[in-house]
């Protein structure tokens, strides 16, 4: 008879995850129980929203300290809370913009909401993961849900293709990640980030090639998730094929989760080996920004353009990762929040304007929008300005923090490349504005069906983008507190 002990845990630390799991299952049950009535499934959207709000309410931590659970594999602190907030926000906004979209596309199945909730759970696990295995499990929970969501338009070939591509390449990349984890475990004997850090510290840095290789493979696995070049090739195809609302979700949530894990692993575990990984990330950052921005210019489909733009934004965030100072970390948090608002906002407008079967998503279709629907065009302009980094929008402040972080750490060249890249990006972001306001419409605008939920999503995004742009200091303060937790 062996003696097995239950690992200690604090119920508060996992309460948001429990709530989301519960609500995910409730959504499934309500869906199957009411499937006879093929009516409106508004109820499911509302249930999911309530779950998200409850999870947000219960997401809290003792101020300034880290709450460890499950044998120190799960950490709730200001850092994971900040990311949890970003995840819940992006999930909430996604549900708001999905509601009318999935009805129009006739993919109005209850599993849609449940899967979104489950993938959010995965993200929260990733952000709170204090050991490599937990991060890996979170990543899998998140990814598998999103693989399915990508192929949610079952009758559309392009959606199936996207889903399969994402799944196969995702599995490939996951292999790298897992292999990296096992190599790290093999050479340090630990999967806990803190223990890895103390092992490296005791050796006075990394010299073991096996450990270095493990680290490199982990970077590849996570680099795939955040869509950094050259692990980005899936992004345009998958973004284009996935249902637009899921594209919006994918471009924000998993990316944020990827960066949450990236920062935690590289700074907490490999913090003392900064010299070893900074050059890798340095090159990845330059490649990612430049490739994303340059190819985005040549796009004609707005979803593909936003896909490349999301690659470029990952590049900016990698700059913050390279600088690896407090400002870089808090800049990443801030930028991710800003990106959530502006990117989901932009996708919301794409959804409002597109028609059944994802018609009307060529950039030229936006000609004359400024006269026909001035408010929508104005909101779109705001989001584009924010992504291009024009003050007084959130994107500007975020870029400002990231580039200053790079300069503070002495990466002046990288900051200069980043600025040049944002200048390039202005071209394709502003092109949309120019087309909206200065070109005659090429075809008739169909009467729009705008549901109050999507209007709420756009309004929240506009307010968020402006608020972060004009009054950044309060949020930045919170982000800075979150930073302290990593060291």
């Amino acid at each position, binding site marked *: *008879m062996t003696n097995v002990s239950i690992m200690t845990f604090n119920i508060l630390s996992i309460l948001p995850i429990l709530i989301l799991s519960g609500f995910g*299952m409730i959504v499934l049950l309500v869906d199957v129980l009411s499937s006879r009535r093929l009516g409106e499934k508004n109820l499911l959207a509302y249930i999911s929203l309530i779950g998200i709000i409850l999870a947000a309410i219960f997401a809290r931590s003792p101020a300034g300290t880290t709450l460890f659970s499950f044998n120190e594999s799960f950490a709730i602190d200001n850092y994971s809370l900040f990311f949890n907030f970003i995840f819940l926000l992006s999930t909430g906004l996604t549900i708001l913009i999905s509601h009318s979209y999935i009805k129009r596309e006739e993919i109005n199945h209850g599993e849609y909401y449940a899967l979104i909730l489950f993938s959010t759970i995965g993200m929260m696990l990733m952000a709170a993961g204090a050991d490599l295995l937990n991060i890996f499990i979170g990543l899998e929970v998140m990814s598998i849900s999103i693989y399915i969501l990508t192929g949610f338009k079952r009758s559309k070939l392009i959606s199936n293709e996207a889903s399969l591509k994402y799944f196969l390449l995702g599995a490939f990349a996951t292999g790298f990640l897992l292999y990296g984890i096992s190599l790290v475990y093999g050479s340090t004997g630990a999967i806990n980030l803190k223990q890895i850090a103390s092992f490296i510290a005791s050796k006075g840095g990394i010299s073991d090639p096996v450990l270095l290789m493990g680290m490199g493979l982990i970077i590849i696995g996570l680099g795939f998730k955040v869509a950094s070049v050259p692990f980005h090739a899936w992004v345009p195809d998958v973004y284009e094929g996935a249902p637009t609302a899921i594209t919006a979700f994918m471009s924000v949530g998993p990316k944020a989760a990827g960066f949450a894990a990236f920062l935690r692993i590289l700074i907490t575990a490999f913090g003392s080996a900064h010299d070893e990984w900074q050059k890798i990330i340095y090159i990845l950052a330059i490649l990612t920004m430049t490739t994303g921005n340059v190819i985005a210019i040549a796009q004609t489909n707005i979803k593909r353009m936003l896909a490349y733009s999301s690659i470029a934004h990952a590049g900016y965030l990698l700059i913050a990762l390279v600088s690896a100072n407090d400002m870089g970390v808090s800049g990443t948090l801030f930028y991710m929040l800003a990106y959530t608002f502006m990117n989901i906002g932009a996708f919301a407008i794409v959804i409002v304007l597109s028609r059944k079967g994802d018609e009307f998503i060529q950039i030229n279709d936006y000609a004359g929008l400024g006269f026909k629907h001035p408010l929508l065009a104005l909101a779109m302009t705001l989001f584009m300005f924010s992504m291009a980094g024009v003050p007084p929008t959130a994107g500007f402040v975020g870029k400002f923090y990231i580039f200053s972080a790079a300069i503070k750490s002495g990466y002046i060249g990288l900051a200069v490349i980043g600025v040049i890249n944002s200048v390039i990006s202005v071209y394709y972001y502003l092109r949309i504005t120019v087309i909206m306001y200065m070109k005659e419409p090429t075809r008739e605008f169909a009467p729009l069906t705008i549901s109050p939920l999507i209007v709420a999503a756009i309004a929240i995004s506009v307010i968020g983008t402006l608020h972060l742009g004009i009054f950044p200091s309060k949020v930045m303060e919170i982000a800075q507190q979150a930073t302290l937790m990593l060291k």
Partner: protein
Amino acid sequence: MIHYLPILILFIVAVGFAVTNIGLSAILGRRKPTAEKLSPYECGINPVGSARERFSVKFYLIAMLFVIFDIEVVFLYPWAVAFKSLSLFGFIEMLIFLGILLICYFYIWKRGGLEWD
């Protein structure tokens, strides 16, 4: 390293023995190839049609459902072994786990995942 020398010697002897024998049989042996001798199976029934048949996707569904529930149920064994030391807390944990499993079962059932047609 000196301790490993016998292993090295054994390794060389083993490889040498195999190489020698195969080499000798290749040099010394007689070869008379016929059509019968070259076919993959010398005995048994001739194959009927291609082996690459298309299965109904329902097989996969059932198989996957089986695997999922199978693995989850396996989880009960270590729990049962350590039941005493886990005490009431473990019991409640397992009840929650089974509850989730039941919900999944219910969901699959209602969705029609268990029906063949």
